[in-house]
């Protein structure tokens, strides 16, 4: 920003904060006849409201400032000029990120005099202020990198801003739900009074997270530190994704992103049994006999870890009919292409991803002292394989049927939404329950639930069901793939005839 514009924007921001500060002061602390303890309490409330307001401001301002960073370059056609220079995408992205991130820090610094009022008057300490600012800056970093990622794959600045806000909203809702589940620990509701670091992941739980710490083994680790590590890992993932979008032909970046995905899936698989198993039954007040069977985690957490694959498969398994050769089918299944992002490497990579999630869950479970899974679970492992093959076949079919990659992705996303929500929606409208649910109510049960591919995830005891679903999904996936090959051949013949 150049000229007088930033001056007026920042002045308006400070005036806004001053107004809120003065208004809050006169309606609470400034009242006559207030006791000292009441004044202290009001000041703490004043500080809390300021921090929540700053959290909200960051949710809005960080993505708004960053979302147009790359898409604007693309629109003014200067991106090719930059990419034709000997500059690696990571430097470009980090530069863009620093450029946007410094404005977020400027907003925090400009808010400092107002926040300092509550320190001077006794509502908070400087440690509280700086810890809150640190956590807020972590969130701003996540939003900035997320907006940067979105900026690399949309074509219009307005769309980039809208998608960034949607992305931030999804993150805020998900992280707030995670933080809310961690909150009871602080009140002594869990097996331990130390809340997990997930409490520090939401910008609206900064105040609860600021002085908390998590027990790792016997070591008490501050949650802000773990949130910082999480932030860096998430930013790395977002920036790698952005770099792949910027330089799709750079096989090193593609490989780096995919290896990072494998490591993160392994880490998630290992972390979930560790963080949930010992404490969660106490938090929800469940009786010990209802405490999860550790061996069940091996399958269920493994299956759960590919849920994100379900959400992301519309990007992973599609390829375009225009653009670079990278997006053209270069085979059906090739281990050699596992990490380079080409269509031939999609299935082996997705299977590796599932494998790493399952391995992580298994090792995590063993680490917390869980029992080894019995042989009866082995057939259930066919479910994730079937799920992956189904999503892969569907992606290839839609890629072959659509001319543009965007259309293929959109249809894939819609198809998966129908698969995921279709049956539950239908059944909830019909007010029926799955046949395996023992309900005391007069709600009728229905076997139609078994048409839902995710039924084995809920009906955990039925491993034969997971096996059967796995086989069926593999068959459907392969059928889709054959259909795609047929379509591609026909289209190629049409094009060569037209040429």
């Amino acid at each position, binding site marked *: 920003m*150049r*000229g007088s514009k930033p001056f007026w924007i920042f002045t308006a921001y400070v005036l806004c904060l001053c107004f809120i500060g003065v208004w809050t002061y006169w309606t609470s602390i400034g009242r006559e006849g207030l006791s000292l303890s009441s004044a202290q309490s009001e000041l703490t409330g004043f500080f809390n409201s300021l921090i929540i307001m700053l959290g909200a401001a960051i949710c809005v301002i960080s993505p708004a400032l960053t979302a147009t960073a790359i898409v604007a370059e693309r629109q*003014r*056609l*200067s*991106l*090719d*000029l*930059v*990419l*034709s*220079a*000997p*500059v*690696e995408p990571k430097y470009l992205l980090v530069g863009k990120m620093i450029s946007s991130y410094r404005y977020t820090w400027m907003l925090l610094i400009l808010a400092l005099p107002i926040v300092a009022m509550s320190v001077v008057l006794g509502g908070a300490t400087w440690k509280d202020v700086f810890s809150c600012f640190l956590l807020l800056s972590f969130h701003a970093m996540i939003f900035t990198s997320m907006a940067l990622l979105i900026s690399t794959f949309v074509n219009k600045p307005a769309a980039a801003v809208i998608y960034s806000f949607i992305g931030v909203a999804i993150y805020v809702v998900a992280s707030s739900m995670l933080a809310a589940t961690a909150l009871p620990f602080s009140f002594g509701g869990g097996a331990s009074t130390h809340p997990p670091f997930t409490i520090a992941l939401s910008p609206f739980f900064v105040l609860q997270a600021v002085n908390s710490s998590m027990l790792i083994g016997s070591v008490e680790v501050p949650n802000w530190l773990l949130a910082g590590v999480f932030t860096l890992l998430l930013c790395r993932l977002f920036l790698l994704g952005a770099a792949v979008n910027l330089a799709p*032909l750079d096989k090193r970046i593609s490989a780096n992103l995919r290896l990072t995905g494998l490591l993160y899936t392994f880490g998630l698989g290992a972390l979930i049994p560790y963080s949930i198993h010992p404490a969660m039954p106490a938090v929800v007040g469940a009786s010990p006999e209802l405490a999860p069977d550790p061996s069940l985690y091996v399958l269920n957490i493994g299956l759960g870890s590919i849920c994100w694959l379900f959400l992301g498969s519309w990007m992973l398994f599609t390829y375009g*009919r*225009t*653009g*670079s*050769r*990278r997006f*053209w089918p270069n085979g059906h299944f090739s281990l050699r292409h596992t990490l380079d992002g080409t269509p031939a490497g999609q299935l082996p990579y997705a299977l590796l991803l599932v494998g790493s999630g399952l391995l992580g869950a298994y090792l995590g479970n063993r680490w917390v002292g869980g029992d080894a899974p019995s042989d009866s679970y082995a057939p259930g492992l066919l479910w994730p394989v079937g799920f992956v093959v189904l999503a892969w076949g569907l992606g290839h079919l839609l890629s072959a049927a659509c001319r543009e990659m965007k259309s293929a992705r959109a249809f894939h996303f819609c198809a998966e939404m129908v698969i995921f929500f279709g049956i539950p929606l239908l059944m909830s409208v019909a007010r029926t329950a799955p046949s395996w649910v023992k309900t005391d109510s007069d709600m009728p049960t229905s076997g139609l639930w078994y048409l839902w591919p995710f039924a084995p995830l809920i009906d955990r005891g039925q491993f034969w069901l997971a096996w059967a679903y796995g086989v069926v999904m593999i068959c459907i996936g392969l059928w889709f793939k054959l259909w795609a090959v047929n379509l591609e051949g026909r*289209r*190629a013949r049409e*094009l*060569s005839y037209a*040429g």
Partner: protein
Amino acid sequence: MLEVKSLRKEYGPLTAVKGVSFSLNPGDIFGFIGSNGAGKTTTIKMIATLLEPTSGTAVLNGADILGDPMEVRRQIGYMPDFFGLYDEVRVWEYLDFFAALYRVPSVDRPGIIDNVLELTDLTVKKGAFVQSLSRGMQQRLCLARCLVHDPALLLLDEPASGLDPRARAELKELIAELGRMGKIVIVSSHILPELADFCNSVGIIERGELLACGPVEDIIQSLQTARCLMLKSLSDPVELAAFIERLPLVQSARSHDATSVAVEFLGGLEEQADLLDAVIRQGYRVVGYSEELVDLEDVFLRLTTGAVN
């Protein structure tokens, strides 16, 4: 030296560039001619390392576009057919930014910026905002941007499009000057007469195939089987054409207008003199004699069919 070896680009069943090969030496100005969609920009983008070739490669001073793209990028200046200018940036800041991208040491940058501004005749606009420049000036600024790191190869994609005649003439002179400075320049353009003026070699591309490549004169020579002579006389052109057609080495002769006869002649300069001598001896009163030269546009039209991918 630039060596382009069987560069090929496929988009599925569509082949945008079909094994283009040529080589250029320092000081060469290569005109890349082709209709829209012929494959010029795709070829240039592949040399600029912005597109991955399906097969083939290009080597610039020992650096391969596939094996060492960063080194290639250090040695090229790429000017696309659009400006790509930043708003609210001054001319010198724009050049300084790109000089930094090309890792030009910060102490050398002011001097280099002054030099390229002088070369492109933009010194007086050094402190101006880029959006305030005229189209011709913006074009020259883009060229100046390509020069900040002293590249060995300049890739200029339609550099003269949208320029007025004066700006076009200035740009032409500037490109010729760059050739004299020992840089390899590849220029793609639709405006063929201007390419013929300063290019010492050309490549004609259609549907991704390089139909002809080499020095302009050689290409014209190879296509021109007969010279086209124009005789202007005070005699009856039909009668004169009939007489000329009977002379040796004459392929055809026809009256062009009320005073002129067009002759397609297979001989050289000696034979041309003999033909003129024979016409005058016969009593025809010749008042004008000239050879109609084939230009690049004729060559292009003869070689290409107008088909696109």
